[in-house]
């Protein structure tokens, strides 16, 4: 009986969403905000990557919020796990030779690749979040391969996550005090289009986000690894 009711409810919801979807103009230029981003994005933000011009330009406050959400996730997990008693050490199997050698070998290139992704966030696909996630993946590999000897540096991770967030906020506040006096206003010169030093504050913010996201995701992995 419960299943039947569930299915009927799902059908009603699906019907509703489909009716709504049918109203959407796909492939036409009725979406005026999106058109504005495509046509004016380059001129207004100076970023070659339109996604970046939206994420760190037009909707930068959302990005500040998303960074905070991740920060919260890491802090919240830490707060909850702090109260739970550590379990006895489980039997763990030592990583195989291939994994432990591979992780030493791959760790630096992955970090470099992550840094490349977030530094070039305003030029090529990717950005602070993606670069940070790649950096965190290097730490996953390290934990899998050579957990016995290596751990993340806690002070370093705290410093990079706090400074990352603070740089974002402070750059925003500088924009509020100089120039056109808008929060997160792009007060730096936009530079030559499609070069590394362009788009004003966007690369700086993305680098800060990269450090922050990398540190936070690594911390979450560290917390979960310690507990399991």
């Amino acid at each position, binding site marked *: 009986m419960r299943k039947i009711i569930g299915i009927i409810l799902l059908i009603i919801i699906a019907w*509703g*969403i489909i*009716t*709504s*979807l049918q*109203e*959407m*103009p796909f492939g036409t230029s*009725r*979406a*005026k*905000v*999106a058109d*504005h*981003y495509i046509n004016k994005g380059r001129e*207004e933000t100076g970023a070659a990557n339109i996604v970046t011009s939206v994420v760190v*330009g*037009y*909707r*930068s*406050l*959302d990005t*500040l*919020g*998303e960074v*905070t*959400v991740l*920060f*919260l*996730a890491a*802090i*919240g*997990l*830490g*707060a*909850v796990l*702090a*109260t*739970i008693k550590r379990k006895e050490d489980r039997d763990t199997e030592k990583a195989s030779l291939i994994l432990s050698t591979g992780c030493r070998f791959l760790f630096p290139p992955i970090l470099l690749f992550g840094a490349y992704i977030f530094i070039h966030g305003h030029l090529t696909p990717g950005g602070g979040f993606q670069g940070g996630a790649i950096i965190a993946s290097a730490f996953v590999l390290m934990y899998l391969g050579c957990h016995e000897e290596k751990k993340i540096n806690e*002070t370093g991770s*705290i*410093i990079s*996550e*706090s*400074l990352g*967030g*603070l740089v974002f*906020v*402070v750059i*925003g*506040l500088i*924009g*509020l005090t100089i120039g*056109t*006096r*808008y*929060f*997160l*206003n*792009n007060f730096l010169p936009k530079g030559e289009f499609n070069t590394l030093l362009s788009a004003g504050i966007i690369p700086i913010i993305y680098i800060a986000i990269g450090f922050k996201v990398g540190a936070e995701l690594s911390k979450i992995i560290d917390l979960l690894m310690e507990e399991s």
Partner: protein
Amino acid sequence: MNEMINLNPVLLIVVPLGLAFLTPLLGLISKKIAKWLPVVGLLFNLIVALAILPHVLKQPIIVKIAGFAPPFGINLVAGPVGMLLATLIALTGLLVAIYALKYINEGAEQKYHILFLLLLTGATGVVLTGDIFNLFVFFEILCISSYALVAYLGNRAGIESAVKYLIQGSIGSSLLLIGIGLLYGQFGTLNMADLAKQIVSSSDPSVFVPMVLMITGLGIEAAIFPLNAWLPDAHSSAPSSVSAILSGIAIEVGLYAMVRVLFTICHVSNFFMFFLFLGVLTVLVGEMSAFSQKNIKRMLAYSSIGQIGLILFAFSISTHFGVTGGLFQMISHTLGKALLFLSAGYMIYRTGSMEISSFEGIGKKMPLTALFFTIGTLSIIGLPPFVGFSSKFLIIKAALAKGELLYTILMGIVLLGTVIEGTYFFRVIQTIYFKGKDVATERNDSPIVCLISMSIFAVLIIVIGVYPHLVMKILNPAASELFNSIQYIRSVLG
């Protein structure tokens, strides 16, 4: 006009956010600083909000983030409603943060203070933003910090209720996001004023479906019946300072977002009868469940559901009077319920039990705390001269002004809820003061810092109760802002 530029409403969001990011860094230097940062941040917010408030009564301040004109960028709308609620959040947050200086003394304290500050930042963001997706982002900040804070004590009940809250809250957020996505797909904009301008009628299925999804999603956070299953557990197993914020701020911010969607974005006019009944039902369910509770915090939590029902009822009367009453009831519930949870917090701490029966004779042992608790209950019940009386009176007046038999009958049912409320609260007061053997007990009241924070709540409850026109000056323009969406659209889009 120079000072208005200096006091940009965006500071209310950004400064606490910056302080929260700074906290772990300062934690490396000294462990003791963390607990002062929420106090500093919220004091700053309160001062800035009070400075901005008089300006927005004449004309809302539109803050363009990064200088992009709406609808292309994100904008904040610091109108009377937003600034009224932002002030209320800063004030309640500050007093609860002062209380927590002493109350929070176990667990990962530094993380508690970060989560607490971010919860209030999220709430401030929700009430100030003029962009529907930005509202979702701040709403997530609010919700995720609440999940973590409910589980803060790390006991079985806390973790269990936090997981329940997490699951239901995440479903709510997903529904909200789907609703926003469907609206964006159709209208190509996320700006609330621009959406409001383009939406002609909320009865059209293509608008109705996203609206239902959004209202359901927000209704879970606002704990409207039948979406309130998570609330009693979550509010009762969190630390009392967190319960005060969850009951006083979090659910009301959920309700605010709901009202904003209904009044401003969708210009609903034909579904208010539904919400009217839902409100009455929420009042009855909340109050009747509270009546049968033996655990003080669960009782207060169910009473919050009843109060939210009353606020929803007031908004659904959908007259200027009704909306004013709803906003006023929000203020009086926040002040009253925060005071109740804070005073109950130390009563529980001293007796070591949440059972109401264990509070026998506590009126002699903790006279001031018990007095504050009594003031809180009397205000929530709605007795003069406390603030609860003025706000409930306004709602009754609004319902009667409608002049229809149905409204009078529904108001009668709501008043029945108030009678139930009075019964169970008086039962607690009786236990505190008049039960138990008359043995001379040592006086062992709450710490002085906590008493100061509670006394400010009590003074506010009495002062606003005696001089309601102090807040009416803000409530009237606030109600007009919600009621007159055309003016809202014009002030944002120019």
